[in-house]
């Protein structure tokens, strides 16, 4: 007999979420995911002066504000043919990296791990240690992580004034040039963050972490190791988290930390079944509103408008259903590293596919990579050169900005006329991952990942459901925006 349960408010997901589960014999047979908040940013931006996007777009999201800024900047550069000062690109990468590391650490320590500290696991041998370390608000890990996070975000104070919501990110670069002493401060902050990772997260030198190139290498590395990453791996093994939230949808990445001619992480679409990566075609991106509380306008973001319709009978979410080449795709750190070709992530995906464990591993591994990249960017800043290029603006044209936020692929489509915004469309990472069904009835990635989850008699109280949902690190405020 099918039992339908509703789970919500679903917290520690950055924003709010509602999940409805059909349960047959203790197993989720079908799921519907609802984004319950709509603020109307695309409507708000319509008709405004072009550059107002730089004030308003970051305010879509308080946790990935820099990502929203940089997607808007990328769209404006594309629409208006603007080139940025190299220093400004490096400074923006440094800020973006700081935000992304803060997000990955916030997810791991404050959003994901507290579920492992729940009383539901009191009988597990590791529970005492994990609860002491990760209990929500009270655990010892947050006491160490929050000061490290605050230190990390001082990069924003140095290069962009403040976080969240800075206006420092401009089409021509960034607004603050730093001097010799400030570059030293930058190195010092990055060094402190690296120390935190090496001490608390990995309990090893990052070079050794980055040398891990297979599941076997990871297994032997973690043997007897302390640190929160190894603690997680122990819990994940015991709970078989690699069997949770398994799907095999294409993994997509727009490529991350772009410079004029290159990017730190590659762009593409990875097929986890075939193990092959294909080039990304931005023209293959569409948004379907069959089950969103939205009126139908156009499938292509460059031509679509956003018109809410709260009474639409078929609707069950404010989230539209983005599709790549007609189907759902998974985005996030796992997708980013799989597309880029990280050997460890490719091996893990080949063995067990995208799942709860591998999503968490990819995030922490990426954190280590980014910190190392930051040291390189800080060294490359040329203190004699400008951070902001004077930009000749046309105020006309259309463009798309495709970047990677911490949680995955973020796109802004902009259309300008008479230096006003004629159209603005945003497709955020969790729009992809938490999409509702499309016109063909195909469920979104989380909806698919939840199907098959064993919840036993616990129904809505199942911790397994919590793990699956949070493994995607959803940002619900971005989702419908």
């Amino acid at each position: 007999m099918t039992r339908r349960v509703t789970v919500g408010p679903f917290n520690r997901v950055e924003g709010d979420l509602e999940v409805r589960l059909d349960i047959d014999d203790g197993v989720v047979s079908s799921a519907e995911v609802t984004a319950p908040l709509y603020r109307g940013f695309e409507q708000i931006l319509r008709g405004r002066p072009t550059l107002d996007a730089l004030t308003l777009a970051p305010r879509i999201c308080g946790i990935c504000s820099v990502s929203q800024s940089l997607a808007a900047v990328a769209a404006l550069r594309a629409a208006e043919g603007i080139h940025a000062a190299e220093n400004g690109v490096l400074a923006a990468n440094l800020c973006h990296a700081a935000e992304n590391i803060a997000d990955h650490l916030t997810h791991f320590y404050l959003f994901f791990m507290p579920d492992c500290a729940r009383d539901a696991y009191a009988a597990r041998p590791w529970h005492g240690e994990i609860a002491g370390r990760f209990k929500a608000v009270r655990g010892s890990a947050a006491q160490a992580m929050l000061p490290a996070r605050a230190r990390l975000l001082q990069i924003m104070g140095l290069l962009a004034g403040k976080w969240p919501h800075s206006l420092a990110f401009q089409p021509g670069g960034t607004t603050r040039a730093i001097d010799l002493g400030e570059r030293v401060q930058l190195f010092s902050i990055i060094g402190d963050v690296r120390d935190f990772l090496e001490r608390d997260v990995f309990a090893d030198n990052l070079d050794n972490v980055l040398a891990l190139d297979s599941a076997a290498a990871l297994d032997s590395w973690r043997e007897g190791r302390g640190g929160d990453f190894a603690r997680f791996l122990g819990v994940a093994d015991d709970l078989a988290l690699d069997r949770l939230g398994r799907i095999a949808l294409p993994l997509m990445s727009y490529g991350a930390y772009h410079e004029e001619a290159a990017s730190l992480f590659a762009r593409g679409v990875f097929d986890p079944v075939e193990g092959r990566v294909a080039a990304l075609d931005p023209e293959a991106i569409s948004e379907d509103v069959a089950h969103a509380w939205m009126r139908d306008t156009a499938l292509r973001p460059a031509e679509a408008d956003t018109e809410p319709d709260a009474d639409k009978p078929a609707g069950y979410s404010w989230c539209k259903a983005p599709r790549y080449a007609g189907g759902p795709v998974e985005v996030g750190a796992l997708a980013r590293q799989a597309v880029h070709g990280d050997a460890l992530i490719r091996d893990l995906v080949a063995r067990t596919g995208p799942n709860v464990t591998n999503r968490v591993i990819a995030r922490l591994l990426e954190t280590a990579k980014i910190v190392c990249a930051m040291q390189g960017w800080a060294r490359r800043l040329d203190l004699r050169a400008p951070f902001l290029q004077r930009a000749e603006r046309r105020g006309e044209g259309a463009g798309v900005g495709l970047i990677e936020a911490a949680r995955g692929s973020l796109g802004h489509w902009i259309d300008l006329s008479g230096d006003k915004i004629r159209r603005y469309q945003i497709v955020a990472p969790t729009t992809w991952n938490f999409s509702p069904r499309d016109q063909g009835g195909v469920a979104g990635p989380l909806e698919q990942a939840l199907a098959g989850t064993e919840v036993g008699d616990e129904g809505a109280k199942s911790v397994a459901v919590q793990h699956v949902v949070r493994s995607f690190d959803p940002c619900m405020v971005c989702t419908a925006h």
Partner: protein
Amino acid sequence: MQPFNVLWLQGGSCGGCTMAALDNGTSGWFAELARFGIDLLWHPSLSEATADEVVEIFDRIVAGTQRLDALVLEGSVLRGPNGTGRFNMLGGTGRSMLHWVTTLAPRADYVVAAGSCAAFGGVPMAGTNPTDASGLQYAGAEAGGALGAGFRSRAGLPVINIAGCAPHPGWISETLAALALGGVDGAALDDFGRPRFYADHLAHHGCARNEYYEFKASAEELSQQGCMMEHLGCKATQAVGDCNQRGWNGNGSCTSGGMACIACTSPGFESAQNFLETAKLGGIPVGLPLDMPKAWFVALAALSKSATPKRVRANATSDHVIVPPRTDGGRRK
């Protein structure tokens, strides 16, 4: 001592006020809260309790069996469509945040708006205000909002508005700590319900560009060091906040970061356009310091422009110091 209970809710929010709050304190925000006996009854981003457990907390508050010292709302109250609040439902409850906020606020000793959205409506109110967003007790500068102009919490105070987008972490933390310590009364708030400990200052106070301001040596483009009031839209002389007297994310601030103050602590800041350009009438900025006769300002500006040292003028339009100050080798006269 009983803990000071805080229930934190997020409405039409970006979550940025919580993200800012998490930045507070050298020992971390949780330690800071504990130091002042503040207990997070529930916080959407941080608490373990989820789904039905949360609704049970709400029910206990409504029934009067759970004391609520402070209700904190982050984000606007979305009243649309057509007054239903359906643009923002609280997951799993079948009820809107509009419902929950108006139901819970009368049970709280203090009601606190974290950020300009909860205070005045903020960014969701921009443009056509498609979701009929408002603040708790204001819609822009107009009293009213979701709770009504006459609302008083059980302690007899209007909504305490920690305005800012996002507010400084210290504004949030210090307001909550001051409430927990007791003795906050109406005199601690300004005309818009903002805590005076930060709202009795202007964002301009302590600006590192002050010498440029004094001499009206203006930046002409972003990233230049000069004063941003004349050309680049800076409203720091008209916006409240001790923004340049305490550091943001270390030693930062908007003006030190090279961008204009957009008056994010002011009701209706989102309805401005062209944030990084100064609106002018007859060549004179429309927005001038509010407590000074305009004619005097214009006269003094002309005088200081004529007295501007070459060093200040040169550095004002550069992104780094090109003419260092003269010190005569540091010899005292």
